[in-house]
């Protein structure tokens, strides 16, 4: 058994262990979509996560990130929207694996998230959001990284 597979099995086993204790609303995407976390390119990861359905462009979701990041180890990103969203996933092409974070928006939740990511080189960051009616939205922005993070 190679190492990558072994890790996957370990995670699955762990998820099975934790599942009975976990809260009803909590979804562990590592267990339900293990392949999405392993994909190298954003396009593949998005396919694994959301299927092959078409992505819509929208301006109703605001995705704010610096155009030029001096420190790739900590890039602030803000996602804001008034739409009734269910899932928000963040992908980037700078690191060995694409998927960075998946937010599960609770019902009647406010979509206004701030967080920070690592990028080792200049690349596109893609945000894909799934509305509660099943429509997929996507936005992308290129971020220039002058000093790579991620131990680079």
């Amino acid at each position, binding site marked *: 058994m190679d190492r990558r597979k072994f890790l996957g099995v370990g995670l699955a086993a762990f998820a099975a262990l934790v599942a009975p204790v976990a809260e009803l609303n909590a979804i562990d995407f590592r267990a339900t979509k293990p392949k999405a976390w392993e994909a190298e390119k954003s396009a593949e990861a998005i396919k694994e996560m959301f299927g092959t359905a078409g992505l819509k462009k929208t301006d109703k979701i605001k995705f704010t990130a610096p155009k030029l990041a001096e420190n790739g180890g900590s890039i602030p990103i803000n996602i804001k929207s008034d739409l009734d969203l269910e899932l928000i996933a963040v992908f980037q092409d700078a690191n060995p694996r694409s998927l960075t974070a*998946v937010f599960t928006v*609770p019902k009647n939740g*406010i979509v206004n998230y*701030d967080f*920070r990511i690592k990028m080792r080189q200049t690349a596109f960051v893609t945000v894909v959001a799934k509305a509660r009616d099943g429509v997929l939205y996507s936005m992308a922005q290129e971020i220039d990284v002058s000093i790579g993070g991620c131990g680079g």
Partner: protein
Amino acid sequence: MAKMKIKAKAKGDIVKVKAMFTSLMADTEEAEKKKIKVEYITQIVAKHNGNVVFEVSTSGFMAENPLFKFQFKGGKKGEKIEFTTTDNNGKIETGKKKIK
């Protein structure tokens, strides 16, 4: 070991929360380079009155000591918000804070 810093402030109906978690967020490649253990948070869940108000699954590409800011409706001063984090090794940490 891991610590959490949580700040929650109620303004009208909306509670603004800032939370910082201590984790190196080192994925395989980074851990090899720095010769440390692979360690990163995979899931963070925040609950208020038993309801999940914030939930995120993360990978090792979040910045070190991840900081999250979010808002939710329906919280009141004096009530508690609870955080649970799980890391890739299966370690679970919890933290509580009163809403100010």
